[in-house]
């Protein structure tokens, strides 16, 4: 029951990592989790909507993310030395038992820098993502619930932010500040990162708005905040989660890129800062221990976030999960999934398709 306005499939996905490809399928297709406990409360619904993290992919991603979070929280206990303490007797040392990942040009311990850098990445990354998600929910759900020009103008606003290239905007805004504090860096990242979530949430809210249970709630005279918080929000959790994860991936990449370029102050230690100093001091290509681990950490965090999103995707769109399994089980029985129809009459069918194929090639 889609309104004509949302008939255009809203499947515009970020092509970066962890794109919530099919999260939107839910927005246009029928609702996946229709069976609901008879006595539903906000919390029981919330618990049910957390089921999307229950599969192996999501769990692996969450575990990796959790390990990084532990590293960030307990940095002072894990890091062997202060990340900024210099030791001019021990410069550019390769990895050893004393310095797990070697040292920099002024004898800083790279491993300690990496551990403290995790803190910089996660704090700014989460802060930026929370800001962006709050804006995305506010704009997206409002635009989805309203009708007419208000909805259209909010949608146009988020589309504008989708089209405008984010990185140059980030560079320009960040460079306006002399020595931006952390929350400003996060705000800049959030400012350029909310549009995708808003767009997906609007599409999903628009499809929810016309469902029977929302109509019923409205007919019962439930207040607007209750309709949005209790009836709608649990059904939006998968979309919110997947846009949260996608925004975080973009924020982490944006933050490390800005730090690498040197637009944000180097005093904010993160993985990009390590690469900035490595690049500035000609670490490439000889001092691999200085620049390889930081890049791998960014990629590992990105993979963890993508895994969480894959899990959510498969939860939302079961075809993604079942397609491969079904194909493999058919193969085990000696069947080919791409010839499913002709299985019964193998001999003639093979001849027939062979003939058709040769004709098809000739044309």
């Amino acid at each position: 029951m889609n309104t004509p306005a949302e008939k255009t499939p809203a499947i515009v996905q970020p092509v970066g990592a962890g794109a919530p490809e099919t999260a939107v399928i839910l927005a246009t297709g029928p609702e996946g989790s229709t069976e609901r406990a008879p006595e539903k409360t906000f919390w029981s619904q919330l618990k049910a909507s957390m089921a999307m993290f229950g599969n192996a992919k999501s769990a692996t991603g969450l575990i990796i993310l959790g390990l990084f979070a532990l590293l960030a929280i307990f940095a002072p206990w894990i890091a062997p030395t202060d990340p900024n303490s210099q030791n001019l007797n021990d410069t550019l040392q390769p990895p050893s038992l004393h310095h797990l990942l070697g040292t920099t040009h002024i004898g800083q311990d790279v491993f300690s820098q990496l551990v403290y850098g995790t803190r910089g990445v996660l704090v700014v990354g989460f802060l930026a993502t929370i800001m962006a998600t709050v804006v995305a929910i506010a704009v997206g759900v409002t635009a989805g619930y309203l009708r007419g020009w208000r909805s259209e103008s909010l949608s146009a606003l988020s589309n504008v932010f989708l089209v405008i290239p984010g990185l140059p905007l980030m560079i320009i805004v960040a460079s306006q500040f002399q020595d931006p504090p952390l929350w400003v860096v996060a705000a800049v990242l959030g400012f350029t990162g909310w549009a995708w979530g808003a767009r997906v949430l609007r599409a999903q809210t628009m499809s929810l708005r016309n469902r029977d249970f929302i109509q019923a709630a409205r007919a019962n005279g439930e207040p607007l905040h209750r309709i949005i918080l209790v009836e709608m929000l649990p059904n939006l959790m998968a979309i919110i989660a997947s846009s949260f994860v996608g925004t975080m991936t973009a924020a982490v990449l944006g933050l490390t890129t800005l730090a690498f370029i040197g637009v944000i102050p180097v005093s904010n230690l993160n993985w990009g800062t390590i690469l900035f100093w490595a690049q500035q001091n000609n670490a490439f290509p000889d001092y691999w221990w200085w620049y390889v681990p930081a890049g791998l950490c960014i990629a590992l965090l990105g993979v963890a976030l993508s895994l969480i999103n894959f899990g959510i995707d498969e939860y939302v769109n079961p075809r993604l999960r079942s397609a491969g399994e079904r194909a493999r089980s058919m193969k085990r029985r000696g069947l080919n999934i791409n010839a499913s129809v002709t299985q019964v009459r193998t001999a003639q069918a093979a001849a027939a398709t062979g003939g058709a194929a040769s004709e098809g090639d000739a044309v």
Partner: protein
Amino acid sequence: MSADSQTTIDPTLVGTTATGTDRQGSRVPWRFIGGRAVFYLFTLWAAITMNFFLPRLLKGDAVDSFMARSQGQLTPAAEKALRALFGLDKSVPLWEQYLNYWNMLLHGNLGVSISTGLAPVGDAIASALPWTLGLVGVATIISFLIGTGLGAVIGWRRGSRLDAFVPVTTFLGTVPYFWLGLIFIAIFSTALGWFPAGHAYEIGVEPGWNGDFISEVVSHAALPVATIVIVSLGGWVLGMRNMMLTVLDEDYITVAQAKGMPNQRVLWKYAARNAVLPQIQSFALAIGFIVGGTLVMEMVFSYPGIGLLLLNATNAKDYALMQGIFLVLVLAVLVANILADVAYAILDPRTRQTEA
């Protein structure tokens, strides 16, 4: 199409009613074009307005930073003259500054760049833009074609060993552009010496349309393009594969196979043809990411494009140049989006049919 008219022709090759409507429906989709045009004009207006207000709301003032650079050698009168030149005169009301700004833009005047000796911003950008457009254009097309094709095949052979490609390309997609670029320089340039490590061509080679210069440009662009393609490939592969899995479950695929249509035709003309539409729609977002990645690649490879210009402008606090670059990039992205819209209108008959 009646059944007896097809007796001599193989029905699988004629196609269905959809093919017929597709051929008839070559009307110009004015409503689609109009809606998109309004949106692009609105985006352009929003970008220009943002460009106008950002430096005025924030601290970034081109004249202040120029005064700081000249370290007190300029008189207050010169500052006033500069303010008038930059359209930053604080005694003029904001709306008048805004109108003047538009007036300047409509005359193709983007202001003067303080980091390149007060040269016009337009000139600085014009000399850098072709390099960036070439890099982005070639990398985007290669990445889209390879990624979408690979995704279609992986989706078709679901459950096979090809599925292993998905995590690999995803991992490559989460690697930051600049880091992979640096690694590539370390491996292919410094260690193996196959490709040059930076710049668009060697100093001393005369630019021109001759074989030497073109091969220079190609070999210098190879590493940056390869990096952008590898990092951006994952998104296209994953998007296409997921869409294929959804499309392959549709009834018309089963029907096409039941008719005994050759697999190649079902794969490319039926499944991939429909699955590619969201890919083209996702172009709007992808191009922004790719442009961002290209800017950083240019900084890493010292490639003489917009990205390097932007880095230099940022370091010199040259706000006029930065804003000019932003505006040109927005324009370029909008043009790319218009091209994607044209492709979409050609590929999706529904955009044309709604006109009827």
